[in-house]
């Protein structure tokens, strides 16, 4: 009996081993084959996205994954590349002297089914974006267009009152509520892409859900969309500027786990990859790692009306918080230097009126990046005497963060610094991301961690967040002078004057500080040496591979 069992066991083991060895050999061969293949057809770009693309319907897109693909398969009136506005479907345009009327003259261009791209396609797209029945999450982008807000919120129902009109096949007129210097660049957002009414009607609810359920007019065509797996783009042979496009094919793989993506990059399967924040420590001294600011600014929003916490309404107390934080130490401890300390609202990359950057032309330097514990205590003492509080421990503050490991690390450093430098009682509350947003809207917080990704290259995208009547301003902070300056900037056509309004407004905001600015986010990435022409920008599609090529 025993002999028989031993022999069966031995036989099974041999089969298993042989099987493994066989599969092993096979894999090695095909792996080699794969490598030589990719070397011969070199103009194929492969990279990873971390999640399924939620939508490729131009007017419903609401995510970075969508924007990256949309930028390649569609083309709007203009194309934004490296922050510069280039002609797109519009060959040229005229802007009226009051800066409110834009007239675009379209070039001869074709959709991927051979039909011409017309001004009516743009008119239809913008009307569809703002139609409340479309329920576009990005409709707010069209609020700068005349009657855009009124039509989307149901205050008017006549679509003809909307400030967009196709004069003829080749001419499109857009009227704005106020002059907006950023508007041209804004038009490169996915939601302003042209859309074919006949195609939308043909597919109904299935429009743009599969690669074959839409037509394309961009430098690339969406060839295949394997849901949960990735998309394949191919060069569009009919694109008007096809000579500028070098890539033949782009594979965008869906790899949810950033560590897997990193392994695939190291194995040569991807051409570039982001470094997961959790692994930053391991890669930060690697000379091949590149860094980019992705446009996000983060801060603690303070609720001036938090019940039972009168100190939050006290400006001196809020100043004390701002002085007490050593932002330099904070980013180095919590993010190993990945994030950059920041002490104001508007992002450093935002363009200025005089050709430079806004933050350089309009410096604000109130709170030192390394903090100032002495000044913090001084302001705290002032606040305590005004509020008649004897012991700083009686002052409580709850920091609300979302429940990710990264957020928790940030919260703990802040808690430590505030406790150490002010002696107040600071607690941390971790909630789900959705709950954090809900609590923020419902004004149920003392201090909530959040941030902002810009929609366009202008200080307005940040500063209007703190206007009294802005739905984003849950702080309860309201300053008539600030509101007046923002409103003045909104209607001012002179760029230099407008910038002065912004500067004055931001100074008031940082001085009265209904928020505690913390950091600008950076992302590290690795990229193959022979890959050129990639553009990474802080607005719209962060990643622009349209003009990329391999040397």
């Amino acid at each position, binding site marked *: 009996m025993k002999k028989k069992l031993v022999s069966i066991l031995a036989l099974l083991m041999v089969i298993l081993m042989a099987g493994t060895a066989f*599969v092993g050999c096979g894999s090695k061969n095909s792996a080699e084959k794969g490598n030589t293949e990719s070397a011969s057809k070199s103009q194929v770009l492969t990279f990873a996205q971390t999640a399924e693309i939620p939508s490729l319907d131009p007017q419903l897109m609401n995510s970075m994954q969508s924007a990256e693909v949309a930028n390649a398969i569609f083309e709007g009136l203009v194309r934004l590349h490296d922050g510069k506005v280039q002609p797109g479907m519009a060959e040229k345009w005229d802007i009226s002297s009051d800066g409110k009327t834009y007239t675009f003259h379209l070039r001869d261009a074709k959709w991927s089914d051979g039909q011409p791209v017309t001004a009516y396609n743009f008119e239809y797209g913008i009307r569809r974006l703002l139609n409340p029945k479309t329920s576009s999450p990005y409709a707010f982008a069209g609020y700068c267009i005349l009657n855009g807000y009124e039509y989307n919120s149901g205050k008017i129902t006549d679509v003809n009152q909307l400030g967009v009109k196709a004069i003829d096949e080749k001419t499109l007129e857009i009227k704005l509520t106020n002059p907006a210097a950023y508007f041209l660049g804004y038009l490169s957002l996915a939601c302003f892409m042209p859309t074919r009414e006949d195609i939308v009607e043909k597919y109904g609810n299935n429009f743009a859900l599969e690669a074959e359920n839409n037509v394309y007019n961009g430098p690339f065509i969406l060839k295949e969309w394997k849901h949960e797996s990735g998309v394949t783009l191919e060069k569009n042979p009919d694109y008007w500027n096809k000579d500028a496009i070098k890539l033949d094919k782009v594979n965008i793989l869906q790899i949810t786990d950033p560590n897997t993506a990193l*392994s*695939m990059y190291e194995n040569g399967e991807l051409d570039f990859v982001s470094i997961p924040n959790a692994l930053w420590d391991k890669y930060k001294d690697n000379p091949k790692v590149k860094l980019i600011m992705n446009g996000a600014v983060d801060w603690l929003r303070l609720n001036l009306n938090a019940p039972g916490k009168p100190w939050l309404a006290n400006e001196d107390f809020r100043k004390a918080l701002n002085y007490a934080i050593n932002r330099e130490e904070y980013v180095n401890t919590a993010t190993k230097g990945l994030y950059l300390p920041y002490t104001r609202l508007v992002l450093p990359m935002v363009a200025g009126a005089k050709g430079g950057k806004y933050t350089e032309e309009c410096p604000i330097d109130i709170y030192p990046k390394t903090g100032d514990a002495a000044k913090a205590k001084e302001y705290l003492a002032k606040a305590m005497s005004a509020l008649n509080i004897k012991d700083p421990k009686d002052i409580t503050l709850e920091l609300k963060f979302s429940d990710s490991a990264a957020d928790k690390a940030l919260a703990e450093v802040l808690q430590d610094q505030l406790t150490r430098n002010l002696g107040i009682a600071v607690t941390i509350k971790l909630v789900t991301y959705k709950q954090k*947003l809900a609590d923020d809207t419902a004004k149920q917080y003392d201090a909530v961690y959040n941030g902002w990704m810009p929609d366009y290259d202008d200080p307005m995208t940040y500063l209007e967040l703190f206007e009294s009547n802005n739905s984003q301003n849950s702080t309860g902070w309201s300053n008539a002078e600030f509101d007046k300056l923002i409103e003045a900037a909104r209607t001012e056509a002179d760029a230099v004057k407008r910038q002065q309004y912004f500067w004055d407004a931001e100074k008031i905001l940082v001085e009265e500080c209904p928020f505690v600015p913390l950091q600008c986010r950076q992302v590290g990435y690795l990229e193959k040496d022979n890959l050129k022409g990639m553009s990474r920008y802080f607005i719209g599609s962060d990643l622009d591979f349209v003009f990329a090529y391999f040397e």
Partner: protein
Amino acid sequence: MGRYILKRFIISLFTVLVLVTTVFILVRLMPGDPFTSEKMTPEIKANMMAYYGFDKPLYVQYFHYIGNLLRGDLGLSLKYSNRSVNTILAQTFPVSADLGIRSIVLATILGLFLGIMAALNNGKFFDYFCVFIAIVGVSVPDFINGSLLQYIFGLKLKMFPIARWEGFRYTVLPVFALSLYTLAVITRTMRASMLEVINQDYIMTAQAKGLSSWQIITRHQLRNAILPVVTILGPITAGILTGTFVIEQIYAIPGMGRFYVSGINDLDYSMILGMTVFYGVFLVAANFIVDVIYGLVDPRIRISGK
């Protein structure tokens, strides 16, 4: 027997209804709403609420949902604009099931084999070896063994692809990683139940009749010892076939496992409900089948079931 099956079936249906109702209420109690995002404005949110019918009273939404459910319609995903949960499941379930079936088959064959061998070699080296594998398999979480296998056999030895789901070679690592836990559970269960059976009187009778050891193992020991394994295989199969979050994520497999987590993070009500219904029906069906098989195999259960 017919009455027994009918009774089980009605209980199963009722279980699913209770499940749907409970989850329907629970998701609405979660803080926040599906459309909240950093850039949402009240006007746009109102448009979206109206689009998905969330502006109606909750009981109207509930009956609407149950009505659709009876027609097999799980509704539109709230995160993946205009894609129906049915379509998403139809696209992702086959992949998860493929991965799952491979893992179950591997785990069952290897697990039964190791369990039987361990029991027959009770107290010897091979027994300890099997127990060791079982302990490792049960105690090492998927994300460790998945990453480890990927690192060693994918990145370092380059024997298998690191990730993705493109053909047989791509299945080896995830199937093995996913089967480890099940394999360990089956090994342990089979070993324990074999050891119990070996000491029964009827085995001694069989030996006394002069049957060969091979006949005793296959005819008497295995048939009696395998019952507990059948019991645990039901829910394990339902769990593995309907997707596994960790292994699918590590190996970038386009299955449905991800939605268990992302559905909740996104507060995608229809997705959460759809996943619950799908998994619930699967689990209830698996248990129903196990119950029926039990009834067929063991008359004692059939009688007490009345």
